[in-house]
């Protein structure tokens, strides 16, 4: 069954050490088992501090579990070196954040190019692909603009274009509509479901019931444990 799963968590614990001397332990995840099927659209819901973002970071190989195993396409993430993890994040995963997190010094085009720069894609090919993606999110006219010159919705669309730059298999979005009004948010969601229709596996952490509405599967987390797992 492993081959169906793009990412799989087995009894995963994640404990953060916080505070001045890192003496305070925070258990963000407590023994999570989860398989995300290829092509799935999964929504993760739950109160603040329940471990949603941590779950997303682990799925995206941005972090390693404290205990248990995270398998990305069958490969144990804990056993991989930092460079190998960076490569997975670069080629296989796309991240979208609540606060857009665009590089303030780069234009919309430059931001979309960024993952391809790190991947070593030649300039000509990079520009072609970046323009194609900006066209797809409806920002062709805005490619020279800096993030500060774009609205929130536009910035998030740039961020989605950036996440799709290296044609990832897995798109991870952390509250992508959290900072947007509902209409702009809907536009962003349709981009996400469009990507999903193209075959990209999408995982969205959200408070937004509308997101949960379009997902194939909804997960509820509380206190670092999955408390509900329903197929739509």
């Amino acid at each position, binding site marked *: 069954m492993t081959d169906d799963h793009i990412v799989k968590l087995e009894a995963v614990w994640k404990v953060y050490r916080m505070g001045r001397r890192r003496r305070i332990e925070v258990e963000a995840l407590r023994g999570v088992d989860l398989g995300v099927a290829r092509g799935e659209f999964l929504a993760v819901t739950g109160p603040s501090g329940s471990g949603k973002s941590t779950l997303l*970071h682990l799925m*995206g190989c*941005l*972090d390693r579990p404290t205990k248990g195993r995270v398998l990305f396409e069958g490969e144990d993430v804990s056993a991989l070196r*930092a*460079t190998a993890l*960076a*490569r*997975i*994040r*670069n*080629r296989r*995963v*796309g*991240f979208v*954040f609540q606060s857009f*997190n*665009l*590089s*303030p*010094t*780069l234009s919309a085009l*430059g931001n979309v*190019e*960024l*993952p391809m*720069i*790190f*991947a070593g894609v030649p*300039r000509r090919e990079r520009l072609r692909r970046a323009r194609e993606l900006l066209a797809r999110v409806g920002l062709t006219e805005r490619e020279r603009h800096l993030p500060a010159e774009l609205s929130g919705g536009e910035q998030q669309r740039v961020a989605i274009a*950036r*996440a799709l*730059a*290296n044609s990832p298999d897995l798109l991870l979005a952390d509250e992508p509509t959290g900072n947007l009004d509902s209409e702009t948010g809907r536009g962003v969601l349709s981009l996400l479901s469009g990507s999903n229709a193209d075959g990209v596996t999408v995982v969205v952490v959200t408070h937004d019931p509308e997101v949960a509405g379009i997902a194939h599967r909804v997960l509820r987390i509380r206190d670092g444990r999955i408390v509900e797992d329903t197929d739509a």
Partner: protein
Amino acid sequence: MLDLFGIAVRGLLHRKKRSWLTIVGILIGITAVVALVSLGESMQRAVKRSFEELGYDVVMILPGELGGGFGGPGSFSTPFEIDVDALSTVEGVGEIGLLNFQSVYVKAGGKEGFLDALGVSGNIFSFFKVEMVEGRGFTEGERGAAILGREVATELGIGAGGTVLIEDRPFAVVGVYSADSRLDEDAIIIPLADLQELTGTRAVTMVLVRVAPGYDVSETAKRIEDFLRRSRGRRDLSVQTMEEVHEVVQRALGILGAFLGGIAGIALLVGGIGVMNTMYTAVLERTREIGVMKAVGARNSQIALIFLLESGLMGLAGGILGTGIGSSLNFIAVFAAKRALGTGVLEYGISWWLVLGALGFSFLVGAVAGLLPARAAARLDPVEALRYE
């Protein structure tokens, strides 16, 4: 690599004011290094030209000892008498030129006052070039003639064809020389015999001996030294080949250069610390951005390279500007020295190795200063960096 370069440049341009201030720190250091080192070079170049003009087959006899360090040859102020005829019998000794410096009272054009007079034997112009702007030099055995420095000629309003009274004796002005002769323009040259008559002494302040063709210069110098000690019964004169004098002067200039370079190096060190400070601030400010770059797949080495390029570029920018300003300062110093001192104690020029060295070094200072901040950036935990507010 080229694309990471682009990201680095954008980062610098984004915080323009801070980047510029940091660059100024490096600029000051490099300016100091380039200006001082090239000034030293200018001195060495001028010294080298003087020696080449005089010729390395010339041996000097001076009062006192040739010391090391800054002392150099003994002063011209203690004249000595010498038996020229006996000296010319020493094996290898060719032409002998004699010089004497004295202060004399001069009257001309309704003005009067003390001037430095240089008494020379008739053949002295075969030892060093005197650049004439007007008239001619002395002929063999000529008496009662004078060559004025340009400044003196202007001051007195007299040129070739005029007359000056030196210690109340008339001298026909036969020529005017310029500072390119490496003699001060505010002096007056007369035949040695005349000067000796005027001052009532047979003494000279310097003897120049050209080594006859086919003889070794340092061996001949040794023979002259032996002769002087035997004939005078004491070691009150020193004999130096141009090679030795040149070496002593170069060594002195070398020490001076290293000293000045060291001071300039401290300025550069301070500039480097400025770069480090700016880069640490940049890393802190851009923690979140670093997190995002890691999230989209930047490797640690790529993150480090971006910050290293940023700091190296700041160093290089300071280096380019500093080299430009430093060499301009040298140019101004050489120009000012010529105006103020009237002689060619400095000669302008900047060597390519200094330019390339300064540019390379400034980039290196920037990059080394950026090393720790870049490492800090590369080592950031991506999750913590993303969470950073």
